[in-house]
């Protein structure tokens, strides 16, 4: 269905091609998963399927890309629309209509389908994607998972033979991700659609793939059986890393496969090494905090304590009130009731430039805080504002990212790099508490590992850190304590192991496989008896 024949592509004004010499064939009704580190060209490969690359971006392409018998060299993007459905990374950015129903019909209107056919297909897709209850909702009022399903449905109505999905679950909480993935697998199984999908969080999807396409940083592509490709993959979900550690072959791709082999591994394991729980003094105490928008409460009477040196993960589904709580704790956001005290001071009573010396927040969209011409300028401005000696922010940035060209424009940084820059700016103010809102979006495993180490290090210097995240593996790796919110209230607050192991939604893969207090592959490695 999709075939790449010796394809090499370079963006304009670059020295290095984004993908090199790709030979790739995806058969009809297959689900192919594109994996690889950040910036390796996954999105580029996906956009070639309907010709957005190179037609929309410019650049040089050699070789042939043929989809369903159509060569992208001879067909414009619009002419591929009935064949290829492309769902971009941020689904909301591609919405063109006002309500769900109109959005679903848009592609069909462009293709000129008969109104009767359109009406019928919209109803079918509403059912298939579980959107019937949302049909006349405004697109701007949808949650992340709903928006993702609408975006998929909107291309589905045209009955494309090929679906291309760029990180469809990256912004979703675990439950919403499951829902979206279930919809996608249903398409593959029941409708016979060919799916090409990129994803960072392999633990969620790798078991559904018929084929894995691995791109490395040089743009070289290797495609094949999932278990074979994952042997050498530079990115691997915990269950694969566990399999590698235990020397299992073929590698397990799902928790279920791994669990069957777990007993032999369990025999070789000592009791898990308990993580050093921090018992520093309490630096932040929040009592009865609530946030009310209009007449709908987002946070209801939350009480929370953060101790120095502690890393806390704040989890819960989209819309549970996590972001609202972080903003209220920082003082810049709305707080309708309750008290917050950081080292005896309520940050909301301080001027913003004072408040950030007590509580620093790295928001969901780090780029909101970046506005200078270059990374170096950002750092200089931050040092001046923080009153810290010149070079402080630059030093933090180097620890976070390694050396980075100070003349780069902030807009050219990757999501992870922007986050690091904002974190460096905020750390320059030497806050007592650092809050991070969903920091791992768009990060590969290596970047997440690095961030996790750094957060531990920052905490080790006596700062309290709280991270709102959907990423259960990251939380298991990083946090001492997990707080779970639902509907604006705290429903669980305990040691990481105590909260996540027993939860079907929040348990990391290693905990699911081994059914014990091991949370990460590193935990297992540490307690593994030498064979």
């Amino acid at each position, binding site marked *: 269905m999709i075939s790449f024949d010796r394809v090499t592509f370079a963006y304009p004004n670059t020295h290095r091609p984004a993908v090199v010499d790709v030979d790739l064939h995806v058969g009809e009704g297959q689900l192919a998963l594109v994996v690889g580190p950040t910036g390796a060209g996954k999105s580029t490969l996906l956009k070639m399927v309907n010709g957005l690359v190179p037609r929309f971006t410019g650049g040089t392409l050699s070789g042939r890309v043929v989809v369903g018998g159509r060569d992208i060299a001879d067909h*414009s993007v*619009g002419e591929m629309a009935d064949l290829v459905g492309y769902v971009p990374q941020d689904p909301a950015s591609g*919405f*063109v209509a006002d309500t769900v129903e109109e959005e679903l*019909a848009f592609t069909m209107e462009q293709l000129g389908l008969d109104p009767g056919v359109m009406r019928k297909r919209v109803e079918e897709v509403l059912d298939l994607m579980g959107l019937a209850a949302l049909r006349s909702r405004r697109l701007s*009022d949808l949650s992340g998972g709903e928006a993702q399903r609408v975006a998929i449905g909107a291309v589905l109505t045209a009955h494309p033979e090929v679906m291309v999905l760029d990180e469809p679950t990256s912004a979703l909480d675990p439950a919403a991700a499951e829902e979206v993935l279930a919809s996608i697998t249903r398409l593959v199984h029941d409708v016979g659609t060919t799916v090409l999908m990129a994803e960072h969080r392999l633990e969620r999807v790798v078991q559904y793939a018929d084929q894995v396409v691995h791109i490395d940083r040089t743009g070289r592509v290797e495609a094949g059986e999932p278990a074979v490709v994952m042997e050498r993959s530079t990115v691997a979900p915990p269950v694969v890393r566990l399999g590698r550690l235990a020397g299992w072959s073929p590698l397990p791709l799902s928790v279920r496969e791994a669990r069957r082999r777990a007993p032999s591994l369990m025999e070789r394991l000592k009791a898990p090494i308990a993580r050093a729980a921090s018992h520093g003094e309490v630096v932040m105490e929040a009592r009865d905090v609530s946030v009310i928008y209009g007449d709908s409460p987002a946070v209801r009477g939350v009480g929370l304590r953060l101790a120095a040196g502690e890393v806390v993960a704040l989890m819960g589904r989209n819309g549970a009130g996590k972001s609202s709580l972080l903003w209220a704790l920082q003082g810049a956001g709305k707080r309708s009731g309750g008290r917050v005290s950081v080292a005896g001071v309520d940050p909301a009573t301080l001027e913003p430039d004072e408040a950030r010396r007590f509580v620093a927040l790295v928001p969901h969209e780090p780029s*909101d805080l970046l506005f200078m011409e270059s990374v170096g300028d950002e750092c200089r401005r931050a040092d001046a504002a923080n009153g810290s000696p010149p070079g402080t922010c630059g030093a933090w940035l180097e620890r976070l990212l390694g050396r980075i060209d100070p003349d780069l424009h902030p807009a050219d940084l990757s999501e992870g790099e922007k986050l690091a820059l904002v974190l460096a700016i*905020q750390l320059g103010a030497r806050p007592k508490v650092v809050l991070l809102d969903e920091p791992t979006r768009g990060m590969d495993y290596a970047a997440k590992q690095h961030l996790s180490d750094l957060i531990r290090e920052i905490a080790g210097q006596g700062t309290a850190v709280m991270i709102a995240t959907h990423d259960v593996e990251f939380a298991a790796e990083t946090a001492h304590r997990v707080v779970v919110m639902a509907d604006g209230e705290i429903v669980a607050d305990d040691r990481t192991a105590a909260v996540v192991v027993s939860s079907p939604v929040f348990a990391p893969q290693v905990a699911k496989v081994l059914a014990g207090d091991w949370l990460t592959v590193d935990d297992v490695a540490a307690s593994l008896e030498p064979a």
Partner: protein
Amino acid sequence: MTRQLPRRLHAGAWWLWALGLMAVATQTTNPLLLGLVVAVAGVVVASRRGGAAWASGYRAYLVVAAVVVAIRIFFRTLFGGGAGPDVLFHLPRLSIPGGLSVGGPVTAQQVLAGLYDGFRLAAILVCVGAANTLADPRRLARSLPAALTGVATSVVVALSMAPQLVESFARIRRARKLRGETGRGWRSLRPLLVPLAEETIHRAVSLAASMEGRGYGRSTPANRRWGAVASGGLALVAAGSFWLVSGSQLLPAGATLATGALFVLVGLAGAGRENHRTRYRADRWERQEWLVGLSGVAAAAGVYMTGALTPGILLPQLEPLTWPQLTPLAAISVLIAAIPAVAAPPVPAMPNLQSIPETAP
């Protein structure tokens, strides 16, 4: 009698109705008649307004209309120069170099002229507001002739982008505090505008990619040829109207205008026939649409006839001061436009929309 099925009326019907009322308002300065227009618009809006977000702006139009009246009276009072015999009071006079003067005697004629004039403008504004409140402007764009659907889609998309821009602005403004950037003056705009511009451009590019990927603009060469015919016609229309207004040669000017109009129609029809786009659940034009649209047209026609039969009614005299009059014909004509309040189909109940005023990300 069977109950009317709740449905959305064709947006064009509401606009036709509102245009009729506006035509009434432009013809007259009679405050009684204008008051009737505003009242009719209000009654219809109150009874046939939907629950959607775009339908909640009527109050704003009323406020703006009131402000317009006030401003009009204020300026007439200040700069009116005491035209008319009936002096109400004196303001201190102030001469400005250049022959202008401010203040002086204020006459009833001055104030009333301001009131009448302002009221006319206000009534037109209220009619626009009523149309906007009763019909989603986006739906109107969706109902444009087939040849213009490309343009219509761009307009719809642009309209949908506006609220997102407002939302981004609020979010970035809040985020600025996190960096302690709360300075005043134009330098403090930078932390606000740079991220906003970046996000807007980024969003526009991804939107364009998405529209393209979904088949927008699969235009055929034939489509463009008809477009050229229509544009040529449009140029003729422009030239013809200019000629006509300059008033020298009526016949050739009129001929040019007519030819141009013909070309436009042919172009649009041709492009429409070859247009391969279709519309999902297009608004239908049925009996009620005729009724609503024609009620507005009838009001305009009735008032026009009033003007022909009894000219004094539409433009009441100020010298000497007389109480404005109404004739049965004028009053009944305008009241016809209130028929939609009962005859238009009821608005379907909106599903329980959750309004999220200040969404936390």
